[in-house]
């Protein structure tokens, strides 16, 4: 399908919440070292697909393989950033990262400080995360996701509620990571931000992938462009 080997494969993935099917038989392969952008209207199944790839949503039917393993087995190679921050509001950024580092067997302040610096924040900032601006919180959340140097990053709405300057900064950071060989998946409604950077646009509608294009403008399947 692509010039590089598939790092993730999804086979006939169905995810139901009660009687509602959020994913309706998604099958796809995703290449390594690329910047994938998942687009679609609200309720199209973007977040559910991302959560299934990260191992947070268990398939009702079908299978997900990440690096030839189940997402749970591949968790050391996965970095996940959700729409909420996944951080404790009462602790500082550094305190948060030091705790999450321990979950991956990482000790010492240095890796945490590096991750915080990578997202252009100050590791010495003592303010609790709850007092950060939305943009700072999003960047600290990204720092948490990249803390253990994962091969694959799943980012859900990383640019929402972030000012244009901060969002562009985040895109530059993600581009650098992609260039360093990481595979990146971004769910967003702000496709314009990643145009020219992303390698592939995945268009979703009603729980299915309806189109995959190399550029934003090539899409023809009828999903509304935002």
């Amino acid at each position, binding site marked *: 399908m692509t010039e590089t080997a598939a790092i993730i494969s999804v086979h006939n993935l169905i995810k139901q919440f009660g009687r509602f099917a959020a994913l309706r038989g998604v099958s796809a392969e995703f290449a390594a070292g690329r910047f994938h952008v998942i687009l679609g209207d609200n309720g199209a199944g973007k977040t559910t697909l991302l959560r299934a790839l*990260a*191992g*947070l*949503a*268990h398939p009702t039917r079908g299978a997900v393989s990440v690096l030839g393993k189940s997402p*749970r087995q591949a*968790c*050391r190679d*996965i970095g*996940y950033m*959700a729409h*909420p*921050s*996944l*951080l*404790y*509001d*009462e*602790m500082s950024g550094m*305190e948060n990262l030091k*705790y*999450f580092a*321990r*979950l*991956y*067997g990482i000790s010492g302040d240095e890796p945490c400080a590096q991750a915080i610096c990578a997202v252009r924040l100050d590791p010495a900032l003592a303010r609790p995360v709850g007092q950060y601006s939305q943009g700072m919180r999003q960047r600290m959340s990204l720092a*948490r996701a990249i803390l253990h140097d994962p091969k694959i990053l799943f980012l859900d709405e990383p640019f929402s509620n972030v000012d244009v300057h901060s969002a562009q900064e985040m895109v530059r950071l993600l581009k650098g990571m992609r260039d360093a060989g990481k595979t990146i998946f971004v769910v967003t409604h702000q496709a314009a931000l990643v145009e020219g950077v992303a390698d592939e646009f995945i268009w979703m509608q009603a729980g299915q992938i309806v189109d995959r294009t190399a550029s934003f403008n090539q899409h023809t399947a009828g999903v509304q462009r935002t």
Partner: protein
Amino acid sequence: MNSLWPITLASLAKDIRLEWRSKDALNSMLFFSLLVVVIFSFSFDPTAEESREIAGGLVWVAFLFSAIVALNQTWARELRNQVLDAYRVSPAPANALFLSKALGNFILVMLLEAVMAPLFMVFYNLRVLGTAWELIPVCVLGTWALVASGTFFAAMSIRTRMREVMLPLILFPLSIPAIQSMVEATRIILSGDGNPRFWIVLLLTYDVVFTTACLALFETVLQAE
């Protein structure tokens, strides 16, 4: 998988730090427990002999209801900002999270008992007629019985609506053997009437069975949607 105890201790330290900063659970538990002591002391006017008979039940009712406050708070802070998902995608063992939460609640409830026990003694005019040191294993084993099963069922109920109501509805019926053991052992020790050993052994058995079952099943509870 990472080793269990370093992550357990890191999670416990984090929970203690968060509780120290907010004091959400501790303040509500102390206030609630104090209310129970005062209200019951107004409701009854027992002699010292009657107090010894009913104090075991009163003390543990107060601690049980106060523990519910801590148990509900335990998981509430993991749901804010969906922080639990960050743990679920990490390679950290599920049991480390369970143990840290159970130990954190154990420390909170033991702290509460240390503060409230002297107040109970004063308000109900109590004097221990049995072997006083036997109250220590009853408190330790009884508290662990409450928090181990309580932490587990609180985790089970976090994704339900009205979880504050659901927790006691699930927890209390299953804790009856433990509650009866705590109350009977405390009554025997306070009145000096008999030997509490049977109830202490029953409490220990309850702890071993429930802790083992919780550890075996917690991974499933944590990864459930």
